[in-house]
């Protein structure tokens, strides 16, 4: 029967305990063997010596088995990422980095393109209600329907999402785009009614 991760850890612990016990026995024997004192006298001098040596050996073994916290922190990529060091030179340069031409920024810029791309992605990747929602919004906000032609759809995506016309010079990109369009078409067919709306009949951006 396959074991789960927990079983694996238990087995690992048992192995460690067995190795520790084995090492204890070796240490006890080794200490007595290397001593010049007879065994009886050795025990009489310090009856706890063997035990203490064995415990030390075991704790060393455990210490080796458990990496130190600072080592874990140093090798933990997340921890490393989250302890950000900032050099004084970086602070010194900040006003210069912040300066520069004051560009006109608009919070609404690029919204229709982003929206169309996400709805397209959701038609391809999502399932169930999310895919249905994306298909309905493509119909409502971009005038797509289950009868929208794949070539027509490719044209729309290329123009409004990718910003380029479909080109025969890049067959890989063209094939990828066609694949996306087929998936979108399948989603539209699955979720939309049979009304025939043509691209351009009601082309509008995202809801205000």
């Amino acid at each position, binding site marked *: 029967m396959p074991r789960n991760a927990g079983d694996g850890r238990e087995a690992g612990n048992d192995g460690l305990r067995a190795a520790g016990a084995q090492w204890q026995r070796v240490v006890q024997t080794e200490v007595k063997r290397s001593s010049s004192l007879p065994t009886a006298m050795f025990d009489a001098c310090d009856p706890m010596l063997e035990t203490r040596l064995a415990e030390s050996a075991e704790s060393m073994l455990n210490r080796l088995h458990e990496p130190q916290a600072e080592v874990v922190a140093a090798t933990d990529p997340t921890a490393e990422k989250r302890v950000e060091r900032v050099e004084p030179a970086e602070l010194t340069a900040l*006003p210069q980095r912040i300066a520069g*031409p004051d560009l006109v920024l608009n919070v609404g810029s690029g919204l229709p393109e982003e929206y169309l*791309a996400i709805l397209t*992605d959701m038609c391809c990747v999502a399932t169930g209600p999310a895919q249905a929602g994306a298909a309905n919004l493509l119909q409502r906000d971009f005038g797509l329907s289950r009868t929208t032609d794949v070539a027509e759809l490719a044209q729309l995506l290329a123009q409004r999402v990718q910003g380029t016309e479909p080109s025969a010079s890049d067959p890989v990109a063209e094939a990828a785009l066609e694949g996306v369009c087929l998936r979108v078409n399948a989603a539209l067919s699955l979720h939309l009614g049979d009304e025939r709306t043509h691209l351009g009949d009601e082309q509008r951006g995202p809801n205000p």
Partner: protein
Amino acid sequence: MTKGQEKLQLAAVTQFAHELVAATLNRELHGRDSQFVGDSLRAMVTALRRAAAVGVDMPLELRFAGDRIDFDGTPLVGPSLQARALLSRCRERHIAALAFGTGMDTDEANRCLDLLLLPQHEQAFSRERRDAAFAALGIQNLRATPCAPGSSGVREAEPTDQALHRYQDLADCLQQNHMRARRDMELAVDAAEDVVERTVAQFDEPSLLLSLAAQDDVDRFTVGHSVRVALLALQVARALGADREQLVHVGTAALMHDIGKSKVPQQILFKPGALSTEEWHWMAQHPRLGAQILLEQHSEVNASAIGAAFCHHMGPTGRGYPQPTVPVAPSGISRLVRVCDVFEALTSVRPYKRALTPIEAYAVMFRNEQDFDPAWLRRFARTLGLFPTGSRVHLDCGSEALVTAQGECPEQPRVRLLSGPGGTALPAGHPTELAIGAPFEGRVPRISGVTTHDRCIAVPEFDLAEPEVLTSHANHACVSTTLARDAAAIRPAAST
């Protein structure tokens, strides 16, 4: 009692109140016997005992006054920020104060929450039924003080109350929506827009709300984080001259940007250590999950909210996640939310990291400039300033000061002196308001350090030489042709 002891006791009581609020929220979100409730009840009982250990009078009494939790006449603003549910239940049950005895264990604490939260116990705190209700549940270490007859428990409003009330609105609305999303229920998107609209209408300058937000410690579903991101985004959008409708869209999109995290298992979301590959896979799904949740709604969801949920981990050059099936060029709102999201994450405390000061956060973000639209990043930094309003700073003369407003340059705010050189008291009548970089008492003051609640960093002299004209914006931000087209449409304006 020394000031130090007082501070220690107040910190212990504040921690207890935070844990009580967290336990209440966990009960509402996860149910009575979930692991999260168990964890927060243990933390609550530990905090109670710690408070006793540092000399807080027992039983520890918290008073519930309007939108605030008070202790011994001191408002506990931090714990109050996400305490809407607890305060509402206390109001419904006409409870003016609750006192917790040190003998309380986690089981008894959970039974106390039964009395507070479950509808069948709504009358349990009435004078006639209290003793029987407490006895029936074996509650021995809780004392309740009812509101005075004829009193609603609402006290006279104070200046910070409006901000507190608004913050609670935002947090409560977001908690409700995360809870609904988690349970596959319809979101209250209209409610989110309403609360953002009220915030926009009420606060021209959200710095008061942001300074409150810094005290938020209970972060179920990263609610505090999302509220702060929304407030930051609103501040920048307002500075850009966005109209009311745009502000509502920006605020709502920023508020809901992490809604996908409601579908990420809580053990992963709040894991203090490194995530495994599988856990990271879950986390990386949250932008797409967020967009999916919003698309599943029957009610109208603005396109910008869907965009921000999907794109807030995407850089302008396609770095980050998710990997879409067609290129997605993030909109202006998504780019702004991304900058606010990272800034907030860097400047807030997490169980596994300390907060960076804003100036350090900017340094880190400019170091990784390719992850952001540099135009939005620069505008963000200019709007907030290198020392955002509310920052505590040290001046080169040795005085401590509080940033009260931004000046002409992002590195030269206006400040109010809190102390004289070396922490000495300011003489009576001494002017306290000054502008950094402008002459004051025969010298030009400079900021030499900035402090957070647990650290102080030195601020070196800035290099204020005329910067080279930056022409690389299009190279950084406009990899896709759509973005290039956007960049061509934007034109330089008069520099500030």
